[in-house]
């Protein structure tokens, strides 16, 4: 573990290799390879982690890259995130974009401008995004979803089962939410109590208790919809 000061006024880097732990604080770059533990909240310009990482606090950074398994015991605030593997957040997530390749869980709300990728997620609060484009390879769960555009597809299962089957226990690639609201909703394999939107496509494998739409609704013959209501004007 090295922690060196650079030019005066510039924040130091945190570099952790192998097995070890570090203090929290304010850094420029945080690079963790191996099994690392950070004892307190972190703020950094760049956070890059490979391996198994635990952060006992908040994380605030412009750029996050995680390869492996990470546990964050506080909220996450970032600009961009690239996640390959599993990230558990014991709080909310707020940021610009997230590219998912694996599994993301959050105890709080998740607010992103762009959320795309392959995998599964569990958001216990509100999942709010500008554009959301997900190919499900595991269970997608959110209490509530509020978006501008949403596209949900099922990833080719056999390939993924081979890659991640050992890590993710629940592999039923279905999106579940109480309420889904948005402008353009393009859903497949989705279970929701209520779906509300301007232009709604209920694709195959969907089941919705109530669908409210303003401009258009398309329902796949294989989908189950309890009640369709046209709202507005």
């Amino acid at each position, binding site marked *: 573990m090295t922690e060196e000061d650079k030019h005066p006024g510039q924040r130091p880097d945190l570099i952790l290799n192998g097995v070890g732990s570090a203090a929290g604080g304010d850094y420029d770059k945080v690079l963790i390879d191996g099994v690392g533990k950070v004892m307190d909240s972190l703020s950094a310009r760049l956070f890059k982690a490979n391996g198994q990482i635990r952060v006992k606090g908040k994380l605030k950074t412009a750029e996050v890259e995680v390869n492996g398994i990470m546990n964050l015991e506080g909220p996450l605030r970032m600009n961009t995130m690239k996640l390959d593997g599993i990230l558990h957040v014991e709080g909310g997530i707020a940021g610009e974009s997230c590219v998912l390749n694996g599994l993301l869980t959050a105890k709080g709300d998740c607010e992103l401008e762009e959320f795309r990728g392959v995998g599964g997620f569990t958001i216990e609060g509100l999942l*709010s995004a500008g554009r959301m484009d997900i190919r499900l390879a595991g269970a997608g769960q959110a209490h509530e979803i509020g978006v501008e555009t949403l596209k949900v597809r099922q990833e080719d299962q056999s390939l993924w089962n081979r890659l991640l089957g050992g890590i993710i226990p629940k592999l039923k690639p279905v999106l579940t939410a109480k309420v889904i609201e948005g402008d353009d909703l393009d859903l497949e394999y989705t279970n929701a109590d209520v779906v509300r939107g301007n232009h709604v496509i209920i694709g195959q494998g969907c089941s919705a208790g109530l669908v409210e739409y303003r401009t258009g609704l398309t329902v796949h013959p294989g989908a189950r919809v309890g009640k369709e209501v046209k709202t507005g004007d």
Partner: protein
Amino acid sequence: MEDDLISKKELLDLTGISYGQLYRWKRKQLIPEEWFIRKSTFTGQETFFPRMLIQARIRNILNMKDDLSLDELASRLADAEGYSEIRLTREAIIERNIVTDIAMSAYGTEVQSKGDLYSFGQLLHLYAADTLLAKGDMSLDEGKLLLRTLEKHAGVLTGKPCELYFIRKMGVALFLLAPSPAELYFDEGVRLVAKVALGDLIEQLKGRLS
């Protein structure tokens, strides 16, 4: 409290905005988290908003969004700081129709402090008096009492949600300022003439200023 709330659906129908816009504005913190009130209804869970606040806020956003980016808007709306810098002359206030002529000539001299300029706080007090006058609930003289009350105590309550009660008993006017939510119970001779949330007034005033 029930009729002070508006459901999300009703709000979208009234304002013509979409779900996407609403969520986007929430993410950009143009609409504070506290205004999203979740309640169980017979159709499941529904989201409600404080009616006056959200409508004024959405009008403000819609008016300003063409000229400013959402981030600029957020900082403009989030802090009263931008507004607290505001100093307006008497003429500008009347010209922009923020406070009516009548209220201005009756109370203008009461609240004025430095030179010929009015701060946001003072404007707010004038605006409160003006609103009550316009409703016909309050006489000109009682307005002076209101302004003195506000001037003396509003400072303590800055930044906290707070409500102004205007009550009458046997023709005598009383003003109360209480942090909300407060439950006040009066004896039976008391008539509650008006109850105004200062937050609503601030929101409306911001709309007029922008």
